[in-house]
């Protein structure tokens, strides 16, 4: 058996804000699985692995997350290294350039997988050197905390792909399939993970993984403005409830005279503009206090709630709208009579 390396360095920074962390090293030695646990004592630096007397080894990075009085162990990363294993990278493509990768529930994302060092099918190398398998999986987030918890669901999709040649493979329009009855409100993450060749007797090691966060489509609800009513003055009681605004977005209200018509540029109400550059969806309540800026003469007006995100090339999307009538002319029905 070939000695892979006397020591393998897990380099790079391991920066974790809290919790106890450790690395699990797994390898097969003389036909037996040997598992080491390497404690991590600092927040950054290098960890030197145990000797690897086999052709490959799996490294898993775990941390503990404490909620109340209970700790849960989470796997942060996994990497398989080996003498004959192909080198694989996986990357997510999204119109939102944010890192870590993210997209919105209704916006497709892309995946690029690059394979090099794969042995030809005619080679006498082990099967694990001649093909890799890609699987797609998901994790749901808690809709309130936007985090993975012990009760949130996770699993694998049935899709799997096997690559037998070197090269760069890209799929540019992957639509999220997170389970749930309201797909626009899906919240979680999807991963494409590249594994060593599946063998019926051995456990697959992870060669590369790319994960994309999926955030919901924002919703808005206007209240305090009655579309069935004719106002004798500009309404001042309107509010807008905004839910799940995209982490990087600008949302605002515009008003224009006439019936609702997409593509209309109206008067943007300054007090309604709210922008975020965050790592998770946002909720907000806006008070429509300056509606008078967009109202001139009497008639039917449309109020629209719009949002711009990294998607659609910067074109705003309409979240909701309402209409209202204004008639400030007072009509008096009266009669004049005289008595002699």
């Amino acid at each position, binding site marked *: 058996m070939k000695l892979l390396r006397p020591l393998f360095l897990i380099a790079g920074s391991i920066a974790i804000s809290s919790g106890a962390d450790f690395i699990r090293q797994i390898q097969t030695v003389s036909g037996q699985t040997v598992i080491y646990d390497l404690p991590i004592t600092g927040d950054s630096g290098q960890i030197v692995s145990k000797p690897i007397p086999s052709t490959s080894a799996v490294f898993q990075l775990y941390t503990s997350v404490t909620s109340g009085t209970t700790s849960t162990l989470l796997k942060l990363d996994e990497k398989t290294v080996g003498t004959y294993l192909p080198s694989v990278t996986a990357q997510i493509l999204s119109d939102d350039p944010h890192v870590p990768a993210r997209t919105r529930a209704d916006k497709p994302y892309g995946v690029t997988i690059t394979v090099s060092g794969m042995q030809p099918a005619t080679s006498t190398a082990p099967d694990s050197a001649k093909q890799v398998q890609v699987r797609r999986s998901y994790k749901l987030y808690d809709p309130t905390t936007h985090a993975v918890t012990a009760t949130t669901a996770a699993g694998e999709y049935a899709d799997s792909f096997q*690559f037998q040649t070197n090269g760069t493979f890209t799929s540019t329009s992957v639509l999220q399939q997170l389970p749930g009855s309201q797909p626009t409100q899906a919240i979680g993450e999807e991963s494409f993970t590249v594994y060593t060749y599946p063998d019926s007797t051995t456990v697959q090691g992870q060669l590369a993984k790319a994960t994309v966060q999926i955030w919901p489509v924002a919703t808005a609800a206007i209240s305090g403005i009655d579309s069935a009513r004719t106002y004798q003055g500009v309404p001042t009681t309107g509010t807008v409830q905004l839910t799940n605004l995209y982490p990087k977005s600008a949302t605002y209200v515009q008003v224009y005279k006439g019936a609702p018509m997409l593509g209309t540029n109206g008067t943007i109400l300054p007090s309604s503009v709210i922008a975020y550059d965050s790592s998770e969806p946002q909720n907000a309540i806006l008070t429509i206090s300056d509606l008078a800026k967009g109202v001139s003469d009497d008639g039917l007006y449309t109020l629209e709630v719009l949002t711009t995100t990294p998607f659609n090339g910067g074109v705003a999307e309409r979240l909701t709208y309402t209409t209202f009538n204004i008639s400030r002319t007072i009509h008096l029905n009266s009669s004049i009579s005289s008595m002699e």
Partner: protein
Amino acid sequence: MNQFISGAAFAAVLCAAHAETAPDTSPAAGFGIQYLPSKILAPGTDSTSDEALKALRQKTKFGGLQKVGDERKTYDLASHSSFIQIDDSYTLVPKGAVLFVPPKMATVIVTEPHGTFVPWTEMQALNRGSLANFEVTLDQASGKTPIDPAKLEFAKRAGNLLVAVILGGAVSVAPVPSPPSVAPTASPR
């Protein structure tokens, strides 16, 4: 669904052009007119409805969720670990690392730990009176050579729970393969 796929086929699974995101020089986050994007374009669409997204999903090639029982075999933590519970703290070590559990500590090995996780090195340091390291070699961990029984028996006498370690890190110990059985030979008369 399990399919062999070429690069072109993988790309064809789903195809849509990627729009470049135009750089925006407006302030990033806040409340007020100054936080509007520098370039305002009239709204082009309503936000996507569930019905529209469901219809889009139906046009997408997708194999559904994995059937129960068909999940990939993984080195998952729970099935490859032994959990040791001491009061309201627990630790884990690789399955096979626990070499000896004294009868008085039989209940500390649990399958559903609770409380705060503490790494083995720290847990052992905090409980030196009941938890102990037992240094092994890589050959012993892989089952290539047996652990010296005399050394193990000596360590057991202290009455501590023994965990196999290499340089302080807990390590699984595989059983030494049994020698092939030898067929009994007929005894000469």
